[in-house]
Each structure stands twice: as C-alpha cells, then as structure tokens.
C-alpha cells in the first residue's frame, strides 16, 4: 500500500514538472538580466525586462484594448446567457430540444466562420474596430455560456422561487431577486470563462483589425516575436504579464469554473 502511495507521488511530481517547467522557466527568464547589462551585479530579481516592456508606448494601449474587448464580451454575453440559461432551466416550451445545438455549434470551426464574417463586418462598417472583435468573442462564447448558466440555475431548488412568487414576486422579479443572487458563483464562473477566452484569443482580432493601435495583447506578443526574435527577457516578461490575469482568476474561482466546464460537456 505504501509503495503504491510513493509511486503515485512520484507520478504527480513528474507531471507537475512537465506542467510547471515551461511556466517557471519563462518567469525565471523574464527576471534575469539581459545579456551584457550587469549580469554579475547583486540583485536577485532583475526587473529590466518589465521596465522595458512597460516603457513600450503601445504596450499600455494593447493592455487597454485587451481589457476593453474582454470586459465588453462579458457585458454582452452574460446578460444573454442569464436570460437564455434561465429560460432553458425553468421553462418547458415547444422547440426546447433545439438547445442541444448549443453544444454542437461550438464544435464547428470558428476559424471557418470568421472568413465570411470578414466580408459581413466590412459591409456593416465594423471592420477594423474593436466592436467587431467583441462581437466575435460574444458569438463564439455565448452557446457554451448559456449552457453553463442553464446548469447553475437548474441546480437551484425551484421551490425557493415558487415561494417568492406566492409572496407576490413576479416571475422576472424572482429571477432578479432570488435566482441570480443564488447562482452568483456560477455567473462569476461564466464571466471568467468568457474573460479567459476573450483575453487569450488573437484569431478574432487578427481577422477583424488591421490598425496597429487596435491590437490586443496576444496579437501584440506575436508582433514582438516577429520584431525582437530572441529578446527572451522582453518576450517572457510580456508573456508573464499576459498570463497573470487568467491564471489568477482561474485559481481564485476554479471550483465553480471546473464544475461549469464539466457540466457544459453534457456530463
């Protein structure tokens, strides 16, 4: 029995090394002094690479763009997901079975859908705006978000709402006052799901924008990569900054996030 435990721990540690080595090495590289600039000087942590990144005039613009797109996607997708998810969790109506499409649609290639969308965004005058990027993020995250919210509402006992309706609360009133507060952890999980996807994505921004000052962070990283080649200090510093928000949000809210993910695959 003990031998098996030891073996299991060895396995866990080995996988942990596989998972963490790239991240740890990246962070270490970002905190190492660039070649030739005081390698032998005393401080343990060198912040030169971070100073360099943050002194790039456009970097702050990229950060703002990413934030604008991610928050805009949440602000648009979440209300739609709450309304749609509530309808699917609490009502029976003709055509409800079509909601299975919410699980199938995200399996079709987003990258293919983007091609005609380029043409349509042009016609709508949204091409080369961040609104087009927000819209794309909303479109591709909404199906799964609705499905996740549906699951969270379904897990709240209906009796609580019924009691509220009997006390004179309207249907929408009970949604607003009872169900939404009770499903709050789930709604946070959905928001983080949308945030992480929008923050990490560069496909939509790449497809719909051409102006350099409209780039989002991942797109900017790709540009740095092209322009700087092997300035690994700068690259890993930018990568670390881009990695922090999703990692932080995920670790803080992982319990609900994981619950929603597993529920969302139909299990």
């Amino acid at each position, binding site marked *: 029995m003990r031998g098996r435990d030891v073996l299991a721990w060895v396995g866990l540690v080995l996988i942990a090394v596989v998972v*963490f080595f790239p991240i740890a090495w990246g962070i270490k590289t970002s905190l190492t002094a660039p070649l030739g600039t005081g390698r032998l000087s005393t401080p343990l942590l060198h912040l030169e690479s971070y100073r360099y990144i943050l002194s790039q005039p456009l970097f702050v613009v990229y950060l703002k763009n990413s934030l604008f797109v991610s928050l805009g996607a949440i602000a648009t997708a979440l209300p739609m997901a709450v309304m749609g998810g509530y309808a699917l969790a609490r009502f029976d109506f003709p055509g409800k079975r079509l909601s299975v499409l919410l699980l199938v649609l995200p399996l079709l290639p987003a990258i293919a859908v983007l091609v005609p969308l380029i043409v349509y965004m042009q016609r709508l005058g949204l091409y080369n705006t961040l609104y087009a990027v927000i819209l794309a993020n909303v479109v591709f995250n909404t199906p799964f978000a609705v499905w996740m919210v549906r699951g969270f509402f379904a897990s709240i006992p209906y009796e609580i709402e019924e009691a509220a309706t009997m006390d004179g609360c309207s249907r929408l009133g009970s949604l607003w006052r009872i169900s939404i507060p009770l499903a709050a952890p789930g709604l946070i999980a959905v928001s983080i799901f949308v945030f992480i996807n929008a923050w990490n994505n560069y496909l939509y921004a790449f497809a719909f924008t051409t102006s350099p000052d409209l780039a989002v962070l991942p797109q900017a990283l790709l540009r740095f990569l092209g322009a700087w080649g092997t300035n690994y200090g700068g690259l890993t510093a930018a990568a670390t900054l881009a990695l922090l928000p999703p990692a932080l949000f995920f670790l803080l809210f992982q319990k609900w996030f*994981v619950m929603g993910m597993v529920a969302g695959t139909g299990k």
Partner: protein
Amino acid sequence: MPSSRSSRKGLYLLSRYRLPYLLLLPAVVVLVVFLAWPLGSIFYFSLRETPLGGASIFVGLDNFALLLSENRFLNNLAASLRYLVGVLALSVPLAYLAAILVSSRLRGAGIFRTVFMLPWIIAPVVSSILFRTMVDPYSGPITAALEWLTGEKFLFLVKPDLAVLSIVVHSAWRSFPFEMLLIAAGLTAISPELYDSAKVDGAGAWSQFRYVTLPLTRNQLFVAVLLITIWTLQDAEGVYSLTQGGPGYVTEVAGVRLFKEAFIYFNIGIGSAIGVVLILLSILFMILYLRVIGAGESQ
C-alpha cells in the same frame, strides 16, 4: 366562473411560452445572424471569388479544384493528420494517468487537479513563447540538456522532424488538462464498492483497471478524445504562433493555411473552401465518434 378560469389559463400559457421565448431571443438572434448564417454562407463564398470591397464572381468548384491540384494543400491535410495523431498519442495517456493520480485518495492530490489545469487556460501565443524560450538553440534549457546528453545541437524549429515534434508536444501540453478533467470526473463517479468486490474476486491492480476503471470511464474518454480531435484539427493559433507553418510548409496544418489565406492575403474564396473542408472533417469526426460510442453501448 368557467370563462375567467379559461382566460386565466390562456394568460398562464401565454406567459409560460412568451417569457422563455423572449428571454432566449437575444441569444438566438445573435447566434443565427453571426454564427449560423456565416456558417451556411461559407459554402456560398467557397464557390466564388470575393475581392474585399468589390463584387464577387461565381467560379464554381474552381477553388476546390485549385486546392486539390496543389501539393501544398495535400501536405496541409497530411500535416493536420500527423499533428492530430501525435497530440492524441501523447496527451491521452498522460491525461489518463494524471486523472487517476489526482482522483486518488492521497492527501493533497486534489490540489494537483487544480494546478494541472494551468496549461489549458494559458493563451496559445503565451505558451508558444514559453516553448520557444525552452528550445532556443543557444539559451534554451531543453537544447542545452540534449546537447549535454548527446553532444548534438537540436535545432527544434528549424529541422522538419523536430518542428513537427515541437508543435505536437506544445499542443499536447495545452490539451491534456482538459482531457484529465473529463476523465477524472468519470473516475470520481465510480463507486468504491466495485473495487472492493473486484478485490474479493482476486483481481489485481491491472485487472481492476481493465475490467472496472476503463469500461466505466469509456464515455468520458470518448468525449475527451472527440473534443480534442476536433479542436486540434481546427487549431491555427497554437501552430502559427510557434512555427508559422514552417520550416517550409512542414507544419502548415489546414488551420494555419486557412489563417494565412483568409486573414493575411484576404483570399476569401480559397479560405472559405478550406473552411468547408474543415467543417466537413469536423462533422465526419463527430459522426464517427458518436457511432463508436453507440456501437460500444449496444454490445
């Protein structure tokens, strides 16, 4: 008072149906206009030549004929297949092992379930920068270790075989957490009594795995493989940010080709045609896997 009762019932039905439809309306409108409609119109655009800002011309199956006559596109499909097989072969066993370990009753194993998810929530561009840093010919720790071990310099993103290996390892690293999550959900649902009775029957560790664990997680395993297959097949971001499809066209998977044609050269016709191929392949894999699950269940 029957009349007021029936009118109340009518009102009840109206509110019962009208409210859910109204609640669903925004999501449905957005999905129909910006997802279903373009999904359908990609077939239309694949049969046309569409210059940006100009009028499009019908060209029949020219885009497809052009693609199929190209060695480059056949190579794109072969690269996608190689990529897919490599990612599955590497990530699924790793995910299964990780799932067994994180759902074991060891104290503290649960925390690993959380932290092992990290690769999955990191942006493809970010992880490709991390991987580039590791395999740099001069400063990368992996290249240094391999040079120390073998005396040779491994030029990961330059040599064709090593470039393929790089995109596979990178993608497997990103994909295994999600597979692990699904499989672990299946593992935790297995009742411990099944293992107890298997032990009473004298089953060893392998037999327990073979006759209890594996059959009872088969569905989760299939769902995981299905989703990763479809996502890997469609992937452009992970590969493009690591190799841009190079060296030459060795790692130019179908997704990357589409990415270049549509988003860099604005070749809407060719891009749509590749998109059609990707959609059909995705549907094919969906049907294939649903069949396999169905066949397994009817046995």
